[in-house]
């Protein structure tokens, strides 16, 4: 401040206003790193056609659990030879469409049937 002597604080702020936060403990950071590690395990995904969607010759695939569901949708589109814009609707257990950013691992833990995650696919909205 111009004019103010350096050692005469004009007005001191309350302590909380300029409090520097402590460091996060190393233990917490390393715990977080552990949970951030991607699960390299693979799980079995079983594709089942609904309605007049084409049937796949092979319908069991091992997919890395840390993938997002979006990757499963893209894989399925490629296998079916679907072009961008071709309609494809995907469901778990004939019941709901998961969020595309959900991981295969999370879906498998909650919804697997007999060790398979069942993904239904349809060319029209079925349980929308």
């Amino acid at each position, binding site marked *: 401040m111009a004019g103010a002597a350096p050692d005469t604080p004009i007005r001191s702020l309350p302590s909380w206003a300029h409090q520097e936060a402590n460091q996060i403990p190393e233990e917490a950071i390393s715990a977080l790193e552990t949970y951030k590690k991607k699960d390299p395990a693979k799980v079995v995904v079983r594709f089942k056609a609904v309605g007049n969607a084409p049937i796949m010759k092979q319908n069991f695939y091992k997919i890395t659990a840390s993938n997002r569901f979006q990757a499963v949708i893209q894989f399925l589109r490629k296998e079916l030879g679907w072009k961008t814009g071709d309609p494809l609707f995907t469901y778990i257990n004939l019941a709901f469409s*998961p969020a595309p950013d959900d991981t295969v691992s*999370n879906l498998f833990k909650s919804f697997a049937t007999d060790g398979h995650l069942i993904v239904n696919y349809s060319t029209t909205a079925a349980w929308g």
Partner: protein
Amino acid sequence: MSTYGARHYNSQATFSTPASTTLFRRLTWEGTVPLEVRVDSKELPANSDRGLECYYVQAPRVSYLPLLMPEIRRFLMDVVFDEAAAEILKEDEWWFESEDGIPMKWHWSIGLIYDNHAISHSLRTTRVAISGVPLKLTLHLASPPSDKLLLSPSVEACKQAFMGQLKEADFIRWGNTKRMTSLRKAEQDGIWEGIKEHNFDDFWRVASKVTPTTAPTRTQSPPPSSASVHGRPPSADPGNVPDRDGAYSVRCIPVRVYLPDGPILQDLVPPMVEDGSPNTLGQYLATHIPLLFPLQPPPPPPSRTNPNPQAPAVQQLAYALIQGVLAPPEAEMAWLGACLAGADGWVNVCVGLVR
């Protein structure tokens, strides 16, 4: 803002739900967060009124960014952009980015976006987080990173994602989606209209058909005293027949745990644990992320020199935010599912690291 829906307080829409449950649902519903939306200065069209390109809004936690777009657009068109610019701009290319450079998902509720940013951003800042600080969002007017946003910014896509989440929550609770699929089309649309219009009664008129209650719906108990607000729900008392739709009768509670900067954990969360007592947030976190929530060890056995031993202190490494509120470890998961879930039925637990 606090005025949302206040005039509907005395309506009878949630007549079969205990007052304490309705209170917490109301508090959840009325929760808002401050947002600061600033158009990326490099993308401002020619002749824009610079210096005004910032918009502040107190947005409902249960709402979604696509639902805020009309309001933001109206402001920009009226105040910032000139007519020529307004004509070329394509709203379906607009997208939001946090100050950490993370694109904001269209299908996450605004409350979740806020809390998730808070726990992630606090890793990087040395300032003490002060609650109520606006979340700074940069609005970009072109080139959305579709691979990260995953969904189009349309209200319709947001609605579909929302309905998908409601059904997934239904499946987690009961092992099927019968409650959701038995809703009539008008009811399914009504639940989304309730979100869009931020109308508590319209939303809960339908949502109460799919969300478990904390008390048997058939007993019309007198208004609870202040003590029972925090007490155990009657359905969990011994001697009472467990209610089929009760919060403690579900198979599992729809819960997601968000860790700073990334991983989202979802697992089956039963309402009761093996010894028949209710599953608590503390137990759940200690089971699933024990490195961040270590179990409190028991005190050592008493001895002559130390007749009343204390349990060794465990350093607290992390905390849990639910709807922006610091959640106590003794909170019961079933209760959280009935009272503090988001509008999509999911209990979002945002875990932050303690400094």
